[in-house]
């Protein structure tokens, strides 16, 4: 089970670097978060500790909030630069 979690996590990383638009990259981050959740639950089950599930609960909640705000930011970026291709978003240069 944990192996699955690990594989999903690594795949998420690769997904992040492969894609070129912000939105998909953001989705990759969500993938990674889910992989972590899976790991948490596995451990919770292994040790009989309900705390793990509790953490996952909060992670999902916070992920939701984060997705909302993050997407709002992406929208703003798009409105300003008319592009979400990360190759072209260089304003952090220097």
């Amino acid at each position, binding site marked *: 089970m944990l192996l699955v979690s690990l594989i999903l996590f690594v795949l998420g990383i690769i997904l992040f670097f492969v894609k070129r638009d912000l939105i998909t990259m953001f989705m990759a981050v969500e993938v990674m978060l889910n992989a972590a959740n899976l790991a948490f639950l596995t451990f919770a089950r292994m040790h009989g500790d309900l705390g793990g599930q509790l953490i996952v609960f909060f992670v999902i909640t916070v992920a939701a909030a984060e997705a909302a*705000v993050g997407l709002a930011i992406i929208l703003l970026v798009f409105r300003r630069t008319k592009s979400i291709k990360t190759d072209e978003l260089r304003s952090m240069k220097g």
Partner: protein
Amino acid sequence: MNTVLFFILSTVAVGGVLGALFFSNQAYTALFLVLTMAALAGLYGLLGAPFIAVVQVIIYAGAIMVLFIFVIMMVRLGKGIPPAKKRWTVALSAVLGPALGLEIYLALAGALSTPRHSTPGEAFGEAEAIGRLLLTDGLYAFELTSVLLLAALVGALVLAKKPEKQ
């Protein structure tokens, strides 16, 4: 029975991500990931966390991914964009990613072999049990998260508002 389910669901989950990797159409990517989320929910159930599984379906697969699709549609990009041009970045990440994975594996190797402490009881992942925990040990986090949600709500609203006409 459980083992079979486990394998099926795992394959679907991984396959979902792989599919997302392959296609360049954003909408396709999103849908594939929905698939992954759903499979994960099943896995959660197998792990004795039914409540969380349901929450996953409702919130993650249902709300978050839908949100993604909304935004994709708002940012009309047509056919989608091909994967990254700078090959070496991708290649490097293909190396580094698994490397990290290996390291994590090695780090957790010890933890993996720890036997279970106890067979969890029936009411392990039930809603009631989690709820109880939420309102006792996790009370502080619970309240804070509520505030966070409120902040995110307001924040997203303010940020995404259409600019006012002067």
